């Protein structure tokens, strides 16, 4: 039930109005003058006040002023004497919500009160809307702030360097990662330096051009930058030109520090090398054990033969000893060749002659095993500077491997061949040794150059290809292998002309 304060000095009027207002459902508070009326107002804070303008003591206008001072939202309806328009206007100017002229009819009063209540309700709604709106704005602002903080943190905590510029290339964001990589503290560059002062010239040029002409993204590439102290740092770099509604607004660059990765790579190489050494030691031990068996066996057989006076058996034993001494000297030679740091002894020679010589050497072994040697030499090679001894070893090793691959092949229906080719490709000399023997599976191919490894049982030292690779590398060349199990292998050696 809505409260209503009714201030009028005439008791009869108060009584009559009170009755009809109560009937309309109001809780009516009454007062016979301004002072008392204000007392009630302060105590009860009714939303609507009905005030007679002409009262002894404090008049209605004054009461209106005071009420509005206490609570400006109160709906104050003034009751004026007939024809007293001046007072009515004055009251309206003082923010009265309505006025009624005496004699006040019930209908007029009812309409005025309904209007007042409607106003109160509207005000209430408006207040609620405003409150909601304010809350919504507050929440949205906080969300934006939170996101902004989050993005700021994201940028600043990134391990990668992130540098953003405005459309002129002046730096506006320079995160911790960038500080670490470039060696500048943030305050020194942000709004103080242009990328031209910080980036390598080519990089700055690309971005500045991108900013003026509009540009593409710069995809990741490995490069290096110079720090504030002029130290070179390996990085991976990428960047982008930033647009907003089609306008170029700036650029962003990302830098990934490669120092740690390079260090890890180095460590990996070292640990692999250590593993290879361990494997080498154990394979040499294994190989030597076998040779030792052979030697001991040979001595035993020879001894036995001597006691018996059996010359045929003595020959067998003696051959065993010779063979195993041969194996040991091969191993030692391979090991020495591998460990020897030596510069190639360059001299003018004919690569085709070397290849021919090696073919001659292998001819008998190939023939014994039903393998055909095919020569395919490029006559245009002529005379070049190479280490003939080194190249001879390379070809000898590759050819004997190729012949072994044919011998090991279980497909006896094949007609085996080993092909030796030479070619000149611009400034590169190419040697190619291929066969249609047993080929290699992936596992063997992978282990080929990485560790001491042999598929030849007692026959191989597991060093041949390592020595070969070493000689090729000493010549600044490369060696590549293609192979398919059961179909054969091709080794290609490329050596740059000097």
């Amino acid at each position, binding site marked *: 039930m809505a409260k209503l304060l009714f201030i009028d000095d005439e008791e009869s009027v108060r009584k009559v109005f009170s009755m009809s207002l109560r009937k309309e459902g109001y809780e009516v508070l009454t007062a016979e003058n301004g002072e008392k009326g204000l007392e009630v107002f302060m105590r009860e804070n009714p939303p609507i006040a009905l005030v007679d303008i002409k009262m002894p003591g404090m008049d209605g206008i004054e009461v209106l002023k005071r009420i509005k001072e206490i609570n400006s939202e109160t709906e104050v309806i003034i009751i004026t004497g007939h024809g007293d328009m001046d007072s009515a206007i004055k009251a309206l100017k003082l923010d009265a919500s309505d006025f009624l002229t005496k004699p006040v009819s019930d209908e007029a009063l009812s309409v005025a009160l309904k209007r007042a209540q409607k106003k109160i309700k509207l005000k209430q709604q408006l207040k609620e809307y405003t409150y909601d709106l304010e809350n919504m704005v507050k929440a949205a602002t906080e969300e934006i702030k939170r996101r902004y903080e989050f993005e700021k943190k994201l940028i600043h905590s990134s391990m990668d360097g992130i540098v953003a510029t405005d459309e002129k290339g002046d730096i506006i964001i320079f995160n911790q990662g960038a500080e670490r990589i470039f060696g500048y503290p943030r305050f020194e560059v942000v709004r103080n330096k242009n990328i031209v002062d910080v980036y390598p010239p080519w990089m700055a040029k690309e971005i500045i051009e991108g900013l003026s002409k509009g540009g593409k993204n710069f995809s990741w590439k490995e490069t290096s930058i110079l720090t504030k102290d002029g130290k070179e740092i390996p990085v991976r770099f990428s960047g982008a030109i930033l647009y907003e509604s089609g306008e170029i607004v700036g650029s962003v660059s990302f830098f990934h520090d490669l120092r740690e990765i390079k260090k890890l790579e180095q460590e990996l190489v070292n640990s692999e090398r250590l593993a290879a050494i361990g494997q080498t030691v154990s394979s040499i031990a*294994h190989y030597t054990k076998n040779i030792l*068996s052979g030697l001991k066996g040979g001595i*035993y057989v020879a001894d036995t033969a001597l006691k018996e006076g059996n010359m045929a058996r003595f020959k067998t034993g003696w051959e065993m000893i010779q063979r195993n001494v041969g194996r040991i000297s091969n191993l030692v030679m391979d090991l020495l060749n591998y460990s020897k740091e030596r510069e190639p002894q360059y001299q003018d020679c004919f690569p085709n002659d070397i290849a021919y010589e090696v073919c001659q050497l292998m001819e008998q072994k190939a023939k014994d095993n039903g393998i055909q040697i095919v020569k395919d030499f490029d006559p245009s090679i002529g005379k070049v500077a190479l280490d003939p001894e080194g190249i001879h070893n390379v070809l000898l090793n590759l050819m004997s491997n190729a012949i072994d691959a044919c011998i090991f092949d279980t497909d006896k229906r094949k007609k085996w061949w080993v092909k030796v080719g030479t070619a000149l490709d611009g400034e590169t000399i190419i040697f190619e040794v291929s066969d249609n023997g047993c080929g290699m599976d992936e596992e063997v191919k992978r282990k080929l150059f990485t560790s001491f490894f042999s598929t030849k049982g007692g026959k191989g030292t597991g060093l041949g290809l390592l020595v070969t690779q070493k000689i090729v590398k000493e010549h600044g060349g490369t060696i590549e292998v293609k192979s398919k199990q059961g179909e054969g292998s091709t080794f290609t050696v490329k050596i740059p002309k000097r």
Partner: protein
Amino acid sequence: MQKNILVADDDMDVVTFVSTVLEKSGYKVIGAKDGEEALNKIRANRPDLIILDILMPKQSGIKLYRELKTDESLKDIPVVILSAISKRTFLRSQEALTEFGGEPVPEPEVYIEKPVEPDDLAKTVSEVLSRKGG
């Protein structure tokens, strides 16, 4: 009756050496240079004892041993392993094969790591053969 012994090793020097030792002790020796040849000769000759290397081309001793021990007609022939590979490595490889769904196989009668002294070899062979009731 003279006992037959099969020696399988891809290193012919080992075959020659072992043959000489065993022939001196009065056995008849059959040589084989790889796992495949060994299995054929074992089937054909039914030797009283097999001396086996591990690392051989075509068929390794690891696989051959497994085939011998799971073949009803061959599994009672005693096997002496003679290899540069350690016994531990060999047993581990057999365990691994068993885990991959094979049936468990017994350990070899004797495991000798190379190099072997002639007297020890002769003694071992005679012990294994007499144990088998021969």
